[in-house]
């Protein structure tokens, strides 16, 4: 499992580095990078915490990943997940979290 960081949207706030349970994210040459993608558990804590939705979750090819991604943002008492399939279609799911 792993996450991908879009360095164009990333504002280098460092929240993801602070909270990653596996200590896997770090700043390197003014970019946030994942030190070992295969070490990621897929908990999505960084995906949920990223204030600019710069982090997305994807399935690695070892378990059949074809490019679908998940991003998340918080709005009021809800988490809004955006799931993009390999054809580029996006579906949104709203979940009460508070």
């Amino acid at each position: 499992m792993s996450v991908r960081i879009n360095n164009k949207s990333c504002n280098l706030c460092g929240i993801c580095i602070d909270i990653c349970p596996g200590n896997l994210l770090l700043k390197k040459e003014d970019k946030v990078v994942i030190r070992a993608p295969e070490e990621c558990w897929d908990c999505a804590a960084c995906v949920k915490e990223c204030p600019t939705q710069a982090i997305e979750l994807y399935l690695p090819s070892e378990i059949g990943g074809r490019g679908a991604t998940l991003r998340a943002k918080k709005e009021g008492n809800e988490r809004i997940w955006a799931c993009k399939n390999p054809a580029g279609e996006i579906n949104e799911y709203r979940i009460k979290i508070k």
Partner: protein
Amino acid sequence: MEKELDIEIIKKETDLLIIGGGAAGIFAAVKAKEMKPECEVTIMEKSNIKWSGCLAAGINAINAYITPDETPESFLEYVKNDNNGVVRDDLVYTIAQQLNQVTEEVERWGLPIKKDENDNYLARSRRSIEINGDEFKPILANRVEEEDVEILNRVVATNYLVENGEVYGAFGFSIRENRFYVIRAKAVICATGGASGIYKPNNEGGAKHKTWYPPFNAGAGYAMGVRAGAEMTSFEMRFIALRVKDVIAPTGTLALGADANQINAYGENYLKDYDRITTPIRLQATLRENKLGRGPCYLDVSHLDEEGCEGLRKKFLNMSPSIVLQWADREVEPNEEPIEITGSEPYIVGGHGQAGYWIGVDRSTTLKGLYAAGDVAGGAPKKYVTGAFVEGKIAVENALKLIKERSEKKVDERFIWQEFQRVYEPLQQPGILKPQELEIRLQKVMDEYAGGISSGYQVNRKKLLIAKKRLKQIEADVERLKVENLHQLMAAHEVVDRILIAKVVVAHLLHRKETRWPVYQANLDFPEQNNQEWFKFVNSVYDSKREKVLIKERKCHDLEEVGVQYECAY
């Protein structure tokens, strides 16, 4: 070495040290401050308490709750039946008594619990209620941050401070700063969680950490206890989860949350022929269907309508988002294809299984000054998150009593120096081995000779003796470990701890001459039932000097015999 590495040694004193800021640890810390506000409490956490531990990805149900159809007595009966009679009745019962109280408490802390039309908690089964647990961990973290509790994030615990068999604190090192911690405490609660990564995982390469249990829970709490000579129980009972293939998503969400039937490749509900369906039998039956050529097996949610599919996706997003990606990648709706299921690799964990510290009903371990709660505490399977809260609470109630009577202890400087050297050695020694290389070797041995996935989870004496021999060699290679930074240093200590836990697992598996925990502990040399060999606990104490696991047996008692008086283990 200290000078060369430029490591600062931080010495601290506290009343209560809690190792591990997960469900049990946070609940214990909050309770300590509520019961005794002047008590100094420190949490040592290898990650960041906001999203660490088993709750990092969220959960969508509380699986240990007494609904109006249940009682603490019937809960105990259920847990005992599911585990074929061998559980610690006193521990399970004392958990059951307070499950609802702690659930209501975390609801007050902000956890959204779903309600039915009468405003009662929405039951998912007789012992389970539905929640919106996406932010469960941040809710717990926010609550403990309201209290005056010192939280040491990113500090990896390495060993207890022990003198004459009593625990007086713990050592740890920071993975973000050049700091080595020596924390003296009047009482210590170990709440670190169980151990993953002992066995070869389901997936490889880029998906190797797509596991049920957090890959970051490497069993430090177990290993520290083993090294300190604490008595451990039931390490032969590995927990193996029935999960969705590849993405290892939870099956309870499908079976209980979406009324899915377990079907084989021919669409037959293969559980209907079983008189007794327990958690391990659901798994055993699945393995059997595959063996008989009737696999793959599935959970069938084809009955769900559009709204049902949407609801199912949301439940998984609350807990295990990867299955939603799997549906997207396959370009199918959840009801279009049955969902293939498989057994996970074995884990050592006291929250689902019952491997862990041998504790008294007061949650004291056999080492005075040390208590255990949650996944690291043995004897009480199926405690889950709410059970971990209850154990944290009971541990604190008793630790606070001990704090009152215990004076501070000076630490011998030699012990500090010894542990400092042990901790930082992989940065210094002229080795060549990476922690990951040793981990792969460990997992291969355990998989092939100690009942991993490739051996159908089964063991026999001949294979276990090979595992024992190979583990000795792996252990000897620890001195060849070489790391370059503090993150890798953590990985080095994780593999050291995992090797020790594996040794204990093999010793326990060799000793249990019966087979009644289906799949979790299946010894092909002893397939027949034998009550004399079954109704007892296999415990062990490690002799660090001789590097030997010494097995001791303990009797199995019914609740009526032992009652629920707060009895100490030491």
